[in-house]
């Protein structure tokens, strides 16, 4: 399974992940090279024509009902606790997407009034709050790991 072919979108993700890894290893030249390759594949990736937030619902449901349970069972059989960690965080964050979208559908922009949007750069958790969370409720990363949108 070594020679698998990835979509341009997947390649852009693999490269942006390796960019971050190089930054953590303090290798700025390599980080920049992975960033360049990732940006190239991002421009090659298929663009979506989505018009409504509801277009996300099907994929979210599929991840929660099939995607994450499949990772969970394969990882349990293999004793792969890293993959289980990824599954645990990802499933919770995806459930948050589902509930945020449901609330937005009901309340519209009133949901965001007086609030800010913060994303945890460690796990992807989205917070809708006036101030940055002290601690990520999903992965326990500190406030400094949140990006304000």
């Amino acid at each position, binding site marked *: *399974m*070594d*020679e698998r072919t990835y*979509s341009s*979108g*997947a*390649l*852009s*993700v*693999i490269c*942006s*992940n*390796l960019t971050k*890894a190089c930054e953590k*290893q*303090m*290798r700025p030249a*390599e980080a*920049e*090279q*992975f960033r*360049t*390759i990732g940006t*190239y594949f991002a421009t*090659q*990736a*298929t*663009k*979506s024509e*989505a*018009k409504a*937030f509801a277009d*996300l619902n099907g*994929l*979210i449901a*599929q*991840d929660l009902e099939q*995607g994450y349970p499949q*990772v969970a069972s*394969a*990882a349990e059989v*293999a004793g*792969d606790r*890293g993959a289980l*960690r*990824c599954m645990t965080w*990802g499933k919770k*964050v*995806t459930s948050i*997407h589902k509930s*945020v979208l449901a609330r*937005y559908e009901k309340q519209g*922009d009133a949901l*965001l009034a007086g609030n800010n*949007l913060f*994303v*945890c750069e*460690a796990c*992807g958790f*989205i917070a809708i709050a006036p101030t940055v969370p002290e601690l990520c409720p999903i992965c326990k990363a500190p406030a400094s790991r949140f990006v304000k949108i």
Partner: protein
Amino acid sequence: MHAARNVALCTKDCLCLFICPTGATDTETGQIDFAKCLDGCRLCVDACPSHALYLVFDRYPRKPAKEDKVVEALESLLDSKVAQEALAEALARSGSAGAKLAKALAMSNRILAEDCAREARYMLPQSEQSKALLRQLAGQPHTGDFPAEAVGKLLASL
């Protein structure tokens, strides 16, 4: 293996300046001068009262092999997150109400997708898997603006 500083933790007690035999810790940027830092010395790491200094390694271990089924499940999830990021980006571009929420969703999906990639064998840039992918990219036909030079440089340095 050289020292690095987490500037957010540094309390400026400056004991690293006292102990460093080469002056590598005393710089105008606050970061360690890697050219002066002695390989594996770690005196500043041990001297720092605020645990703001740590060692950055040059070599990383070969990770345990991943089961095919785990990789397949993670990669199919990765594809789904990529699709959701693209959907959210389209909504953010439209500039309509909720564009900010769409931007947050796009960023969140990128992070979720990256985590799938990380657990599906692309954790370390130095890993065999990462290098095999770079070799595969280098050997494929691409459009004119493909950054072949960056791929070549990475294959040489990793």
